């Protein structure tokens, strides 16, 4: 099975541990990932400050056009913000002929053209629907027995079309984590927003949102929060000391990508495959305590 990988800007830097572990997981499961050559940024959640809606759609249409030209494989966008931006443009291109025409007029300025049909997929979608939980379970060499995890999807991961999971009460990542042998604690904040794209610039305003997520995870006895979005990972992890100051709390909660745990459970190396040495709030100890 061959897919395009759209790493997006955050997997190149702040989410580099996501990229390493996604590649390790793909390798272990026999998936071929090709990077879309010369992709551009999707615009993320903050595009509107400088750009118009049509400009943001242009960014995404260019990536879709490149993907079509380079083979037309399904695009995996591990970053939830990238996923939402790309799938929005892909959908609206199919649904609104006038927009499709406009976008092609614009793409022509750079010698490109898009005829539609390229699929945009979240990594959870591909893991759950194309491979299936049973195949994932069969690949496990070191089950994560005894590890208690809060499965946190965040707000954008399964929205806005509900193409592969419920938009209000998602379950795909829970089942993937259970297939790895982990115990998934009940988690009401699973699809609540952490502050997303304005977290960094509105941290005091957004602190209670992130605090609610970290707080419930702790209350439910989770050893770590598991996520599939680089923005959630960054917001909840690297700013934890700041949040503690603002909220008067003492959170010290590892926030780990689902693919990092998969890489580990599939028998991969802690550093080389799971890139768990890149987490700033270290998960080494809780993972050692679990039977992994």
């Amino acid at each position, binding site marked *: 099975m061959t897919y395009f990988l759209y790493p997006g*800007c955050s997997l*190149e*830097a*702040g*989410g*580099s*541990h996501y990229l390493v572990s996604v590649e390790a997981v793909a390798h272990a499961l026999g998936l071929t990932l090709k990077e879309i050559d*010369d*992709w*551009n*940024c999707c615009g*993320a*959640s*903050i*595009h*509107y*400050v*400088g*750009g*118009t*809606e*049509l*400009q943001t*759609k*242009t*960014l995404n249409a*260019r990536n879709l056009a490149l993907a079509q030209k380079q083979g037309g494989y399904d695009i995996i966008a591990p970053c939830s*913000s990238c996923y939402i931006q790309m799938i929005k443009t892909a959908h609206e291109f199919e649904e609104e002929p006038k927009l499709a025409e406009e976008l092609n*007029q*614009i*793409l022509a*300025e*750079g010698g490109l053209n898009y005829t539609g049909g390229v699929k945009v997929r979240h990594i959870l979608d591909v893991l759950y629907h194309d491979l299936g939980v049973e195949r994932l379970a069969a690949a496990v060499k070191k089950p994560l027995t005894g590890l208690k995890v809060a499965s946190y999807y965040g*707000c954008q991961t399964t*929205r*806005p079309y*509900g193409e592969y999971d419920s*938009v*209000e009460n998602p379950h795909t990542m829970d089942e993937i984590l259970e297939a790895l042998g982990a115990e998934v604690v009940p988690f009401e904040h699973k699809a*609540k*927003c952490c*502050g*997303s*794209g*304005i977290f960094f*610039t*509105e941290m005091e*305003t*957004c602190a209670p*949102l992130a605090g609610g997520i970290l707080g419930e995870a702790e209350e439910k006895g989770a050893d770590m929060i598991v996520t599939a979005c*680089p923005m959630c990972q*960054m917001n909840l992890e*690297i*700013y934890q000391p*700041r949040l503690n100051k*603002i909220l008067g709390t003492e959170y010290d909660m590892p926030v780990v990508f689902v693919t990092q745990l998969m890489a580990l459970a599939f028998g991969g190396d802690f550093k080389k495959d799971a*890139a768990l*040495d*890149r987490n*700033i709030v270290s998960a080494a100890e809780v993972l050692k305590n679990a039977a992994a």
Partner: protein
Amino acid sequence: MATKAYDKSFREEVYQNVDSGEDVKLCMQCGVCGITCPLRGEMTHGPRQLWSLIRAGKRDEVMNSPDIMLCTSCYSCKVRCPRGVKVIDVMHGLAHYALEQGIVPRKETSKFGKAFWDSIYKTGRVDETEVPMRYTLMAGPIHGIFNMLEMMDIGRALLAHKRMKFKIGPGLPPSKKIKGMKGLKKMLDKAKAMSPGKEG
């Protein structure tokens, strides 16, 4: 950046000049979006009330509302609105429209967002750790949340954990451009000219 239709009512101005602004017409004032926003406690009006102010032609109240920039882009409204209003796109459209007229609904988000877009427009990409660093170091502390030293600490931690590509400092290397930058720039310019409320 000229905007048309100042002579018409504010309502018409929004329908014509604001991205997705026409969607406001579809709203039936059920209030679902208003109670859905994660930051509703921080908002004065929230989306539903903003729509009704737009219809009532309350230009100043809408354009000066910080709420239009307190949308986190969570997409909850998008999946819940019974009328299919693109609530989030209208919020973003209003924020963009206000900024173009020199109104700044939220200072820090505006500055940061501008740095973000500039990077896209110049290089085609954004370094999601570098832009915050650059922005903090150059623009000074963000209203008391960060001071530069703290941001440097976070930067160092990211660097040590292989999550940042560059060392921070005054000699930050310029980001690499995508190969098709020339074409992308042309496309973005054309898209701007074709956007609602723009001459072209």
